[in-house]
Each structure stands twice: as structure tokens, then as C-alpha cells.
């Protein structure tokens, strides 16, 4: 028999080792899944993790990692602040949509005017859109004690309906021959979030993601507010004695994560996506939850995890084209990763020991 013994302090070694172990375990079990689907597991894993970085067409795929990784990192950074304090915003997908709608709305309102101030205003609009959407669960929680998990999630479905309504109605391109979807912002100079350096994949969203990582790092390690966030998560009672005001923390964490998700939506709609359409959102808000946990809720970890997750997206697309691997298989693969991560986390907090035999 084995017993679990709680460690006095979480193991430093295992807190670094579990994400790596989880990725390896996912590769093994993912390989088994791919084998069950009739694909060569080694080739499939290689296609997902190797080809985008070092394969024949890597020059094309490498910039894509930045493009896909930026929204994931941006959203996950915001989520991680709340998750650390036990505030669960799982409606980032909705905040992402609302940021995109609000930001694109600002841009479209100015069409066809060309001016330098349009894009900054759109950024502001995107952040505000996401922020406002996240403020709904935040205010309801502070004022009425409503569960923020359920409210933020319900609002995802509301935002999806609103997105459909916008792309079919208010924001539909008047020159679009009746097709759903807004004007393409890529063809509107002042509103386009184009590449900063041609061919690098680097757009303003990527820059914002890096800035968010730095800010989160400073906040958590060098700022009183960050200390309060960590304290609330690790020792809620002590936090109350230390004078932490829970309601302010809730408003802050949900507000920041909403604003960041909104920014991610805006940079996406003004850049890679280009327009508001019914199927604009592709689940970044949910994948970002995996990214946040894979990065152990640490800003630098999230940066790495975001890169890895972007890799599985791109590698998955390649495997779809080359090997006929179904898109859903990648979704399962990503879900598996979170499973192994949570399961292996026990090694961080507990020691596994053989049970000592009873003294006669």
C-alpha cells in the first residue's frame, strides 16, 4: 500500500517538472490515440511538434506561432491573476468576442476616414468592450454574491448570439452583396493591425502580449496588489487579517482579464481575421485556460505554454492536411494535456510513500 503525505511546502523541483512530464505523457497517450485513428504515431507527433519549427515550410509556420500564441498568452495572463486568487473567470471567450465587436465597431464608425488616431481608439474600444463584459459577473459577485463561474460562462453564449446578430445585421458590409460579415478591416488602412515587420508574424497583439507578460511579472513580484492576489489564493484568512478587500480584488482581477481578452479579440479582428463574422471566435478563450494552468499561473510559464499551445494548433493544421488527422483529435490532445497536468500536480504538493508496517 502507498500513502500520500502532504508536503510542508510545495516541491520546487516538481513544480517545474510537472508541466514537462505532462507534455511528455500527453505525447505518449496522444500517440496512442493517433495510432487508434490509424495514423503512424511517431509521424503524427513529429508533424505537430517538429515540422512547424524546423520542417521544410518552417519559414511560413514560425510567424504563425506568434499569431496564434499572442491571443492565448494575452488572455491567459489575465485569467492567471484571477485563478491565483480563486476568482474563476471562465468566460474569456465572451469577453474576446465583445472586445472584437466593440473595437471593430469603433473602426467601422470612422470608415472611410483615414487618420492616425483610429487604431489607438479601436484598441481602447476593444479593451473597454472586454472589460465591460467581465464587469457583469464582477459586479454581480460583489453586489449579490452571484457565482462568477456560471455568470461569465452564460455570457459567452450571449456574446455568441450578439456576434451572430452583428454580422447579420448592424455591422454587415453594405457592399458585401448580402453575405454575412462586416467590412474587411485588412483593406482599411487606418484600422488594419498589420505586421510590424513584414513576414515575421509580429503585429501589435504580439507586442501587447509581451508587454502583458512583463507587467504581470512586475505586478506579482514587486507590487503590493500582486502580493494581495497571491495571499488571497494561498491563505484567504490571513489575507483578510492583512486588510485585503476581497471585492476590490474581484473587480480588479475580472476587469483586467476581461480587458486583456477584449484586446486579444480586437487585435485578432483587425489583423489575422480581418472581419466580424458569425464563426469569428475559435475557442481561444477556453484554450487559454489550459495555457494558464500549463504555465503554472506564472507569467513566464504562460509565455512558454502559449507558444507550445500555438504549436499544437499549427502542427494540428499541418497534420490535418498531410495525414488527414481530424481537427477534433487536436482538441482531445489539448484537453488531455490539462488532465495530465492536474493529475501530476499531486507530486508537487504530496509525497508518495510506501505505508509503514505497523509496530507489533
Amino acid at each position, binding site marked *: 500500500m502507498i500513502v500520500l503525505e502532504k508536503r510542508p511546502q510545495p516541491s520546487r523541483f516538481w513544480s517545474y517538472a510537472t508541466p514537462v512530464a505532462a507534455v511528455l505523457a500527453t505525447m505518449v497517450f496522444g500517440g496512442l490515440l493517433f495510432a487508434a485513428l490509424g495514423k503512424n504515431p511517431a509521424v503524427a507527433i513529429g508533424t505537430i511538434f517538429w515540422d512547424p519549427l524546423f520542417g521544410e515550410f518552417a519559414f511560413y509556420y514560425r510567424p504563425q506561432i506568434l499569431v496564434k500564441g499572442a491571443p492565448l498568452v494575452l488572455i491567459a495572463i489575465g485569467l492567471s491573476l484571477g485563478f491565483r486568487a480563486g476568482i474563476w473567470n471562465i468566460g474569456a471567450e465572451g469577453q474576446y468576442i465583445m472586445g472584437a465587436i466593440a473595437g471593430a465597431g469603433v473602426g467601422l464608425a470612422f470608415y472611410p476616414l483615414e487618420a492616425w488616431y483610429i487604431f489607438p481608439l479601436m484598441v481602447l474600444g476593444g479593451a473597454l468592450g472586454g472589460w465591460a463584459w467581465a464587469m457583469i459577473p464582477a459586479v*454581480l459577485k460583489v453586489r449579490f454574491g452571484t457565482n462568477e463561474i456560471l455568470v461569465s*460562462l452564460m455570457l459567452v453564449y450571449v456574446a455568441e*448570439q450578439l456576434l451572430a*446578430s452583428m454580422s447579420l445585421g448592424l455591422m454587415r458590409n453594405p457592399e458585401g452583396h448580402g453575405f454575412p460579415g462586416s467590412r474587411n478591416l485588412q483593406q482599411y488602412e487606418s484600422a488594419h493591425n498589420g505586421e510590424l515587420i513584414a513576414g515575421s508574424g509580429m503585429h501589435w497583439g504580439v507586442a501587447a502580449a509581451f508587454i502583458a507578460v512583463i507587467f504581470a511579472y512586475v505586478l506579482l513580484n514587486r507590487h503590493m496588489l500582486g502580493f494581495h492576489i497571491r495571499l488571497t489564493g494561498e491563505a484567504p484568512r490571513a489575507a483578510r487579517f492583512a486588510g485585503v478587500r476581497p471585492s476590490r480584488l474581484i473587480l480588479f482581477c475580472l476587469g483586467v482579464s476581461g480587458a486583456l481578452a477584449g484586446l486579444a479579440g480586437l487585435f485578432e479582428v483587425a489583423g489575422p481575421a480581418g472581419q466580424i463574422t458569425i464563426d469569428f471566435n475559435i475557442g481561444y478563450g477556453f484554450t487559454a*485556460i489550459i495555457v494558464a494552468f500549463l504555465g503554472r499561473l506564472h507569467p513566464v510559464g504562460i509565455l512558454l505554454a502559449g507558444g507550445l499551445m500555438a504549436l499544437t494548433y499549427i502542427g494540428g493544421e499541418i497534420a490535418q492536411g498531410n495525414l488527414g488527422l481530424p481537427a477534433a483529435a487536436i*482538441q*482531445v490532445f489539448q*484537453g488531455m494535456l490539462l488532465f495530465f497536468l*492536474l493529475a501530476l*500536480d499531486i507530486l508537487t504538493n504530496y509525497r508518495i510513500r510506501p505505508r509503514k508496517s505497523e509496530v507489533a
Partner: protein
Amino acid sequence: MDLSAINPVLLIASLMVAATPLLLAGIGELVVEKSGVLNLGVEGMMITGAISGFAIAVETGSPWLGFLAAAAGGALLSLLFVLLTQVALANQVASGLALTLFGLGLSALMGQGYVGIKPPQIGRLDIPVLSDMPVIGPILFGHDPILYLGIAIVAGVWALLKYTRAGLILRAVGESHDAAHALGYKVVRIRTLSILFGGACAGLGGAYISLVRVPQWTEGMTAGVGWIALALVVFASWKPWRVMLGAYLFGGITVLQLNLQAAGVAIPVEYLAMSPYLITILVLVILSKDKSSAPASLGRIFHASR
């Protein structure tokens, strides 16, 4: 707009059908939460049940085997939740989310060959005189057996929790796992059984959507019903009959909303489709003041140190 086209008898009958997935998933989650575990993976278990039930029903031609497979599929997925939260002592919120994300992916993968197929139909109850009665017939005696099974499960859970020793132990584990452990009850075993029951119920609820209510398979077809079921348990203050009441209320809103769409009300379709979610939020706000009835150990990790 022609509101007279909405037939109240048919409305109530279809309301009961719309409410059944919620009812099944909600009563399962109620038992899970009564044992002190918060499983946020209801949506994932429902959609897994929806596709396992659909696939087996199509392959075997028997909707009954389909429902059986759906319960098994939901329970199997919830077993992963057991491993995470009861064995590996992982955070329940995160594990539940993992279950939902995984379930959505898995169901999409499993369902690839089943898009656009019609499943075999489950027969409706047809009692000679009773089912032909004008108003009462279609409302009370004209449904499929699973709908009645849902109501029977609610009654069973109610009786179990209120009158039996097993129910008392289940509640004790949910209120204070340390005290229950000290008394010699197997906390982990009891919670495992509850979680499996919740998974099976959620699976049945999912299959009810894919086999009876729609009936078809599309990716992500549960569309948040699992999350509404979670809200429903809060709404019901953890009381079985109130879960049923709540489910019928939400079922009513869903059906009314669809009827209004069909009747061509001046409100755009998208805004009507939002209404169940918005009303869920509204109900949560109204009822969130009273948290006293929540099981005291809900969501807390149990680790027997000796």
C-alpha cells in the same frame, strides 16, 4: 405576428421534452454536490453521452441500448474526474473545466461519421384511453419512457436523501467530510459513487437531446445545457423537487422562445436565443443571497491524513 398559432397544450407537452435533459443532468449534479463535490464537467459528460448514445443507437438500431451506452459513456468520463479529484486530489474547478474541454473534443472526434444521420426513434407511451384524452392525454400520457424515467429519478433521489440511511450518510459526507471520516464512513468511496451517478445522469440527459429532442447529431449540440443544469442546482437550493420545477421553468422559456421565433415576433432571432442564458443569470442573482443550503464541504478537497 400570429400568437394564436401557439397551442398551449402542445406548448406544455414540448416544454416537458425540452426540460428533460436539464432535469436529468440537474438531478445527477445535485447528488454529486450533496456529497460535497463540485463537478463543473456536466457539459462535457452530457455531450459525451449524447454522442455515445447516438452512435450505439444508430449502430444497433435500438434506442434503449443507446440510452444505456449514454449513461455508461457519461459515467466513464466522470471516472476521469474521480481520478483527478479523489485520487490525485486536484482542484475541482479546474478538473471540471478539463472534463468539459476534453469531452467536447472527444465527442467531436467520435461523432465524425454520424453527422446528418437520423437515429432510430424511441416509442411513445400509448395507453388506449388515457393517451387519447383531450388536454391531459398529450401532457401526461403521451411521452417517451425516458421522460418518465427522469421524473422517477427525481422522486427516487428525493426519497433516498430524505428517508434512508444511505441518504443521511451521503449528506453527512457533503456537510463535513472530516466528521464523516472520523465516524468511519468511506468518504472517497461514497463520493466516487455519487460522481459516477452524476455522470450517468448527465449522459442520459445528453442522449435525450441527440436521440429524442433534436434528434440528430451536431458538434457541440448541448450548447450550454450542462452549465444551465449547474445553475439549476443552485436555483433549487439543493432540493430535488425544486430541480424539477426549475427544469420545467427553463424548458418553458426555451420552448416559448422557439415558438415566438416561429410566430415571427418583431424581436430578432438572436436576441430570443439569448433569453435562456440571460434568465439563468437573472435567477442566479435573485437566489444567490441565500447560500445557507449549500453543502458545507462543497468543493473542498478531502485528504485523510491518517
